[in-house]
């Protein structure tokens, strides 16, 4: 059938209204979480590489670490997981989401602006939760035995790390062209992985590099987690302050410079 009669009369009679806010939040963050876990490159970045490093660095003695080695390794790997998801993965996804017009698409629905941001945040936290559980279970199999206090402290640091890296990820993904975001985000990830205090602890890095890395979100997060989980000497307060400072700077710059399309 052709003509408007292929649509029953009354099919499109207006019945406007906004959907329920919790359902919108769940739907948006659910889709973004699914996309993150379905994308092969993202999973490589967020899960496979951290798992390989956790197992490899625990079992193979390439870096000097106090026993039990897993305590020091898992701290760095948690920091890597946060950086991979909140910064690199998010910047790349945001860059391509902008390219494909999804931000404008969703802004044109009844989804309020704040919920658009909250949905992205929830998806990042959901991915990090999956990472922490997977890495925690594997760590436990390798002999990691944290107490409740250590876990609580680590979770606070992980959340602070998400905030600091998340703001910077939005800033990167929201200001440059998608292909450039892809390249820059991966290069930064690699540099910080090796020289930013993530796999190689600050005291094993060259002094000049370590001095800089201590004030980077990667170094602050990884060092904080080592202090919390492996009893490494150092100032937890400094880690927290550095992460809070990056959060403030990242969020302020993102709010000022991010373009939604």
């Amino acid at each position, binding site marked *: 059938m*052709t*003509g*408007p009669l*292929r*649509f029953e*009369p*009354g*099919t*499109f*009679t*207006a*019945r*406007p*209204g*906004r*959907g329920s806010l919790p*359902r*919108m939040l769940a*739907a*948006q963050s659910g*889709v*973004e979480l*699914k*996309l993150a876990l*379905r*994308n092969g490159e993202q999973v490589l970045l967020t899960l496979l590489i951290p798992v390989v490093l956790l197992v490899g660095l625990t079992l193979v003695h390439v870096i000097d670490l106090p026993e039990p080695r897993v305590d020091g390794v898992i701290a760095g790997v948690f920091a890597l997981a946060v950086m991979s998801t909140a910064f690199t993965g998010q910047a790349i996804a945001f860059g*391509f*989401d902008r*390219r*494909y*017009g*999804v*931000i*404008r*698409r*969703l*802004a*044109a*629905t*009844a*989804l*309020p*602006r704040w919920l658009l941001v909250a949905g992205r945040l929830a998806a990042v936290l959901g991915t990090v939760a999956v990472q922490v559980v997977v890495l925690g279970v594997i760590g436990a199999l390798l002999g990691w035995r944290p107490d409740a206090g250590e876990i609580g402290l680590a979770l606070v640091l992980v959340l602070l790390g998400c905030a600091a890296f998340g703001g910077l990820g939005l800033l990167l993904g929201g200001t440059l062209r998608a292909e450039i975001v892809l390249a820059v985000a991966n290069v930064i990830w690699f540099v910080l992985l090796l020289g930013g205090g993530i796999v190689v602890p600050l005291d094993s890095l060259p002094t000049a590099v370590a001095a800089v890395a201590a004030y980077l979100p990667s170094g602050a997060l990884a060092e904080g987690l080592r202090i919390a989980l492996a009893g490494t000497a150092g100032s937890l307060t400094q880690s927290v302050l550095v992460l809070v400072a990056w959060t403030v700077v990242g969020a302020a710059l993102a709010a000022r410079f991010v373009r939604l399309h």
Partner: protein
Amino acid sequence: MSFPAGAPSSAAADAAVTVRGLVKRYGPTTAVDGVDLDVPVASVLALLGPNGAGKTTTVEICEGFRRADAGEVRVLGLDPAGAPDALRSRIGVMPQGGGAYPGVRAEEMLRLVATCAAHPLDVGWLIDVLGLGSCARTPYKRLSGGQQQRLALACAVVGRPELVFLDEPTAGMDPQARRLVWDLVEALRRDGVAVLLTTHLMEEAEALADDVVIVDHGRVVAHGTPAELTAAGDRQELRFRARAGMDLDELAAALPAGYHAAETATGRYVVQGRIDPPVLSAITSWCADQGALADDVQIARRSLEDVFLDLTGRELRS
């Protein structure tokens, strides 16, 4: 025209969109320069214009995505820049080029947009009726341009809005899909929904629109119903072929005042004016007097495309 607070004018009361004196500047460029338009409830308005005429900017201001520099805009009785959230739950938007997560499946995207509405249409039905069933699980970036457009259209209507904005809705579609979209727009109007669409396709505007507004360089250069625009000035014409070099003065004498006859190329003639039976008879008698047979006779009504090209020029724009 002004909009006294608390007492909307009668025009605003039954109009879904009312725009008066809209101006938008980007730096030194004036993209929209004093546009007026009205979209009554249950009607379709087509905004026609060349690339860069200010169509998309006008639509985006109505949707609340951009702020006007001057002029009055009322959409469903609201100021779109002041109350975007209140407005967006009542309108449907098909942005130019669509929009979705690159990796999202077509049906997932439509479900997400449907969740934002209180009483959405059935997603499965809409997927089927728009011919997206075979690609419902295909990631957005792997859909064809026409499929992306149909998904964008589905996203625009799924929330059962009062007013729908369609920015070049049939760009990149094959003729079957275009026909389907036209049927859908007809059905929207029939069911009382107002539609503001932009298009390059004259055929589309002629087929769908109750009113056409032609814009160029940010200004309205013509507006009216398609019939009003194409009938303007009785600009019909008759074209035919015959022996070269016939005496046009005799023809001019035989035709009523106001008609114009010319030999546009060797042996090709055109007579401009209202072509009725007496005029046609006068032309063929003149040919007979000259011992010639009028061949390949065509009576052309001016199409909307002729009107458009007359108004906006025939030169190619970069």
